[in-house]
């Protein structure tokens, strides 16, 4: 078989089911060939799709002990059955692989238009195997699949790569997912960017893509997504849309974007500041949703099928020319997406920078260079703390890494992507950097992945959520600030938190499997309300309990992968600072995280033994034995 040819391995028999295309595109980068495979029907039913099904494939096909950057690791792009349908926010795809940052399974989610386009091309998944002998990209145009030379794009930023591929291929409606220089240079927290500004951001999925010499996947699909029971499906879609339309959550997302959250976390003393040394940031108003809206917002931008449109395009204004960038070759563009809450925090409060110009520029750089702004900001914040206590001196760095230094933020962001000077240390993430410099406690993260923007001393539940998340520090698996700020729980107490987190993790996991954005949940459209859409689309009758069970099954599969990769109970931990040091001022003063009170409850709630290993009976119950 010649490179670029597709082997016909799938009969074109129409399925009775909808939602799924039922097909996987398996690309061997080493040989430059691709085959199309059918997904076993029972697997689709048992995992719904997306994150869960991809985790199943990863566990089956990849040795969990493998080096994430070796050709033996696989990179899976996975959509769900509702991706590409009009269910509000049915836009998501997942990148599932063994993460470069964490050495654990990772499941990184992104919106935009790339996922739906893959479905329209006729595939649920793309599985990338091996390693291309030279920089390559995958071109998918319905049945036509080619592995092509990408040497002219290697070294280029995300914007230039996407524009270049559009020019080269000349196909209207082409969608591109690619890595930037950070991924090529194996920065441990590189992203995969699609539609220029949307990111499968965390745990170094872009690093894995870079290690495979895979620069991009360009997709154009002209096919459609079938629905098993259209009438019931559209009924569910319209009901959902009506219920979401006037919900306060949807309105807040649309008006202020995710950055509105900064006011809430500040008020709770849960806005981690200067590498979690404080719980409040005095300049928070410079970075909040209102300021961005008043001074920067150009327009809201929706992902595919989104009725919320929380995404925003922001004017960079003076930021464009205010800060010197040495290496970035690009003519600077004057608008970009974001900043989202996590970005505004990581590049702002966590590094002590209160200058929105600097945050916007660093955000734009992260997007174009293809780096996770959370880990970037948090790693820089850790370095700033080491500079503050004298571990890092001016001999190590080209400019002072003082908290609040906009210049340091911009320059180090760039230097990290290119591994230049001290950027080479930052590019390893705060855990490896801290260990190398003799101060591992400076790493504010779990399983090697830096925390996002919630201080567990302000939101006790986030402590157990961070410690137990399968992909390390992450806010998207169980967002406890919800119940902790609406009177369900006392934010500083531990009671009930572990149970809630376990249940919520199952819920969000099942939600991720469907291909629908998690934000519909905050806009009065939680999973419970669209189970009928999943059933109508797929033709498989699911109850809410079935769906939650699928979430639990997925969570346990991910856990099994991590245990086989060598992770233990010791990796379900929090850094010393969160356990021992309380904030001295603010609403969260005097609080530390009592993980010892929550973790055993969590394990027993999950049906795991005291070491955090799923029991045989639990695995049997979930059909995983």
């Amino acid at each position, binding site marked *: 078989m010649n490179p670029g040819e597709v082997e016909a391995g799938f009969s074109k028999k129409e399925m009775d089911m909808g939602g799924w295309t039922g097909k996987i595109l398996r690309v061997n980068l080493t040989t430059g060939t691709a085959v199309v495979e059918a997904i076993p029907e029972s697997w689709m039913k048992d995992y719904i799709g997306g994150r869960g099904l991809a985790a199943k494939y990863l566990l089956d096909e990849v040795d969990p002990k493998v080096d994430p950057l070796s050709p033996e690791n696989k990179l899976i792009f996975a959509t769900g059955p509702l991706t*590409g*349908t*009009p269910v*509000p926010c049915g836009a998501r795809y997942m990148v599932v692989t063994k993460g470069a940052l964490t050495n654990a399974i990772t499941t990184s989610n992104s919106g935009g*238009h790339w996922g739906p386009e893959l479905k*329209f091309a006729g595939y649920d998944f793309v599985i990338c195997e091996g390693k291309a002998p030279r920089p390559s990209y995958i071109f998918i145009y319905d049945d036509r699949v080619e592995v092509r030379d990408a040497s002219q794009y290697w070294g280029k930023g995300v914007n230039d790569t996407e524009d270049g591929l559009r020019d080269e291929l000349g196909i209207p*409606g082409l969608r591109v997912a690619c890595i930037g220089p950070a991924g090529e240079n194996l920065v441990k927290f590189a992203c995969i960017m699609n*539609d*220029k500004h949307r990111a499968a951001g965390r745990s170094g999925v872009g690093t894995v893509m870079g290690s495979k010499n895979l620069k991009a996947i360009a997709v154009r*699909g*002209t*096919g*459609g*997504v*079938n*629905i098993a029971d*259209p009438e019931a499906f559209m009924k569910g879609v319209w009901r959902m*849309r009506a219920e979401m*339309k006037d919900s306060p959550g949807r309105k807040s997302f649309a008006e202020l974007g995710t950055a509105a959250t900064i006011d809430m976390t500040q008020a709770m003393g849960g806005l981690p500041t200067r590498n979690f040394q404080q719980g409040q940031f005095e300049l928070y108003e410079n970075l909040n949703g209102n300021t961005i809206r008043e001074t920067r917002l*150009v*327009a*809201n*931008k*929706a*992902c*595919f*099928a*989104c*009725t919320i*449109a929380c995404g925003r*395009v922001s004017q960079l204004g003076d930021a464009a020319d205010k800060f010197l960038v040495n290496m970035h070759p690009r003519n600077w*563009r004057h*608008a970009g997406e974001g900043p989202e809450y996590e970005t505004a925090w990581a590049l702002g409060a966590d590094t002590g920078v209160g200058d929105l110009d600097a945050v916007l520029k660093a955000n734009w750089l992260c997007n174009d260079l293809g780096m996770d702004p959370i880990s970037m900001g948090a790693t820089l914040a850790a370095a700033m703390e080491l500079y503050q206590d004298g571990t890092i001196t001016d001999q190590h760095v080209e400019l002072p890494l003082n908290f609040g230094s906009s210049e340091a933020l911009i320059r180090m962001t760039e230097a990290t992507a290119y591994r230049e000077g001290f950027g080479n240390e930052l590019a390893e993430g705060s855990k490896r950097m801290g260990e190398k410099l003799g101060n591992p406690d400076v790493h504010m993260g779990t399983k090697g992945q830096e925390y996002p923007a919630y201080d567990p001393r302000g939101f006790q539940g986030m402590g157990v959520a961070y410690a137990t998340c399968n992909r390390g520090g992450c806010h998207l698996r169980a967002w406890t600030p919800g119940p902790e700020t609406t009177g369900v729980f006392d934010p500083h107490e531990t009671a009930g938190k572990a149970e809630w987190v376990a249940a919520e993790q199952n819920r969000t996991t099942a939600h991720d499997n469907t291909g629908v954005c998690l934000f519909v949940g905050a806009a009065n459209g939680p999973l419970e309300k669209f189970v009928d859409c999943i059933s109508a689309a797929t033709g498989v009758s699911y109850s809410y309990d079935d769906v939650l069970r699928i979430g639990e099954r997925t969570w346990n599969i991910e856990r099994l992968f991590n245990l086989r990769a060598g992770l233990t109970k010791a990796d379900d931990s929090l850094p010393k600072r969160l356990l021992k040091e309380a904030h001295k001022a603010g609403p969260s003063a005097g609080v530390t995280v009592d993980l010892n009170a929550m973790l055993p409850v969590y394990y027993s709630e999950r049906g795991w033994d005291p070491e955090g290993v799923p029991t045989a009976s639990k695995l049997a119950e979930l059909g995983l034995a």
Partner: protein
Amino acid sequence: MSKVLNILPEKCTGCMQCELACSWVQTGTFQPSKSLIRVNVFDEQASYAPYTCLQCDEAWCMTACPTNAIATDRATGAKLVIDQLCIGCHLCTIACPFGTVFTLPESDKASKCHLCGGAPACATSCPTDAIEYVEADQSWFGPWAAKVTENYVNAVGG
């Protein structure tokens, strides 16, 4: 007075719900490549402009058609393709100044917006009211023309 699709690009967020809805009407699947309304994306300017057939009073597609396969729907004013008469010559697609007449690859026949018989799915599905189906009212024309004139005067320097 008949109703028209009134499109307000400044309200559009680029979510493609209209394309999904339109393709559903045309094909019974969610297949944006078959949509007769297209969202033009200007990402650098954060601007999105849905566009479709304007149902011209003086419709060049109709004039160009050698077999009279395009006719006016009396109820809605929409210009309809009559499949049985269409011979697939593509003249209408060339004649249309707006590029909103398409041909279907499988039948080679013309395909264009028919206003869904008076209940356009794109307008119904738009979450931001960027597409409205409203009485044809030309009160917008005065301010619009004034704005265009002003832009022109500014552009040529007074």
